[in-house]
């Protein structure tokens, strides 16, 4: 990345914040879509069954924990990659 000066960094920070809001919304709607896909398959009624409801809770909890763990490893690996690039 080219070096950014202070003013540019502030502008970039705003861009980052907007993207984080979008990211969160994307995470949210992907969670709905994924857990609906995996858990809801009975269309004989218009309401969620107890079983579907329980499945959705575990699905979203598991996905959040999953992406938290992947995020930690991602940062570690990314830091490693950056170090190796700077050595070259």
């Amino acid at each position: 990345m080219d070096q950014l000066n202070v003013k540019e960094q502030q502008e970039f920070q705003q861009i980052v914040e907007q993207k984080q809001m979008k990211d969160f919304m994307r995470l949210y709607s992907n969670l709905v879509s994924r857990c609906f896909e995996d858990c809801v398959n009975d269309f004989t009624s218009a309401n969620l069954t107890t079983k579907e409801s329980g499945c959705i809770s575990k699905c979203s909890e598991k996905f959040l924990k999953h992406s938290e763990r992947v995020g930690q490893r991602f940062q570690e690996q990314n830091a490693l990659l950056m170090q190796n690039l700077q050595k070259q």
Partner: protein
Amino acid sequence: MFGLGGAPQPSSQQKLSAAEAELDMVTGMFNQLVEQCHSKCINKDYYEGDVNKAEALCLDRCVSKYFETNVKVGEDMQKLGQSGQFMGRK
């Protein structure tokens, strides 16, 4: 849609960005709903161009269940956030 928004006196730019993000989320949710209910309810043999009665009934229930799922995921995320079990992704 989910009561987003926040700082006491947001600038025009911030309000427009928030409104745009909200619009994008509603549109995105609608598009995912269309995909999901198509894959759950629509016969892909395409004997006919019409949506038949069984498919239409399935679609109505599918949309209803999708909204219920949406609300449920929101509630679950709040509970997980409050219980401190999930630290937030960033």
